[in-house]
């Protein structure tokens, strides 16, 4: 009985940390998007938009490396894209955290499941899939 109670308490802690992690990730990345958005608008407000046809070759920030390079130039659109990247990594960080917490709980089946999900996402990080 004492054992199960301890386990529940553990699960409870994990839930609270997971929730905090998700919220922090969303708040931080959306603040970056907002900041980048303001810079982008200040510099580009009069430019004419054209999104009628999908032109992937015009995309400046379509890889993680190009986003990092762009952020160093302080261009608004690069900062927005960096915020978007942080947002994408928020749920992924959640998986990494869950994986470690299952490791502490010695629930190896779910450690394996976490590794499988991260593996699938790593495959999607391979830019070649996109073309």
């Amino acid at each position, binding site marked *: 009985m004492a054992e199960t109670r301890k386990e529940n308490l553990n699960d409870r802690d994990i839930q609270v940390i997971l929730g905090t992690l*998700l919220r922090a990730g969303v708040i931080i990345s959306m603040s970056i998007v907002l900041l980048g958005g303001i810079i*982008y608008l200040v510099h580009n407000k009069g430019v004419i938009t054209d*999104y009628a046809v999908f032109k*992937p070759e015009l995309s400046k920030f379509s890889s993680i490396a190009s986003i990092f390079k762009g952020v160093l130039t302080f261009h608004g659109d690069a900062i927005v894209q960096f915020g978007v990247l942080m947002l994408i*990594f928020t749920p992924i960080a959640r998986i990494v955290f869950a994986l470690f917490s299952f490791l502490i709980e010695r629930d190896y089946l779910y450690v394996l499941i976490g590794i499988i999900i991260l593996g699938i996402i790593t495959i999607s990080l391979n830019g070649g*899939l996109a073309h």
Partner: protein
Amino acid sequence: MSVLLFTLIVLVGALLAGFLGSLTGLGGGVIIIPLLTLGLGVDIHYAIGASIVSVIATSSGSAAAYVKEGITNIRIGMFLEIATTVGAICGAIVAVYLNPDYIAIIFGFILIFSAIMTLKKKVDHSTQDDSSKLARFFKLNGSFPDKGVTQTYAVKNVAGGFSMMLFAGTLSGLLGIGSGALKVIAMDNIMRLPFKVSTTTSNFMMGVTAAASAIVYLHRGQIDPGIAMPVCIGVLTGATVGSKVLIKTKTDKLKAVFAVVVIFLALQMIYKGLSGTM
């Protein structure tokens, strides 16, 4: 149209989409895509890229609250995420080879289906019968706090639920939406989870599923900062306000009115797809 005007219009549209999407349970993604494509003439590939980013923002934001309350079943969520992430990546890859007209048609049908699902009265199928070997093996049976009492539940038909999630993930990756309606079917009707657990767990899974396809979209250049920025800020803000209002108001009438609007948008998407003008 100038960048400033475009940003403002999209921002207002996204605020509305997020607000209504959270009030009705449809989600912001399914509304922002028709707004961008039909209303502003944005190519559907860009609309999908922006929408998927907003799905990550809203689902992670609301999942944070649910997880803390202890209603979300993290094991079920992670187990099914294997299916949804594989599906999402496949869907995102297929999307590039698919003619935008076909994407619009599929989108329209899913939109109609989701709108009808929000109107249907939910029947609780939850069960205490823990005879499923797979559910026991994967430790999926669980409990959640309901008005101070701990409710236990058992999971049925794990393989069926897993397959349905594969399908839900594929559509999510293909169309840039959370596909919550399909996820809830898989968990409510097939796996027989209680509502509270299925809706919160579906929300929990959406972030990872959307992240998997968002990475593919990002590499393909479908996520344009100029569109993604007002869409994700607007949808997230609207959804946050919506979830606060939701607690205080009855939404039955609103759901019915909104379903009609959404079905109208869906028919227009289908018409544009069929006539080859998407």
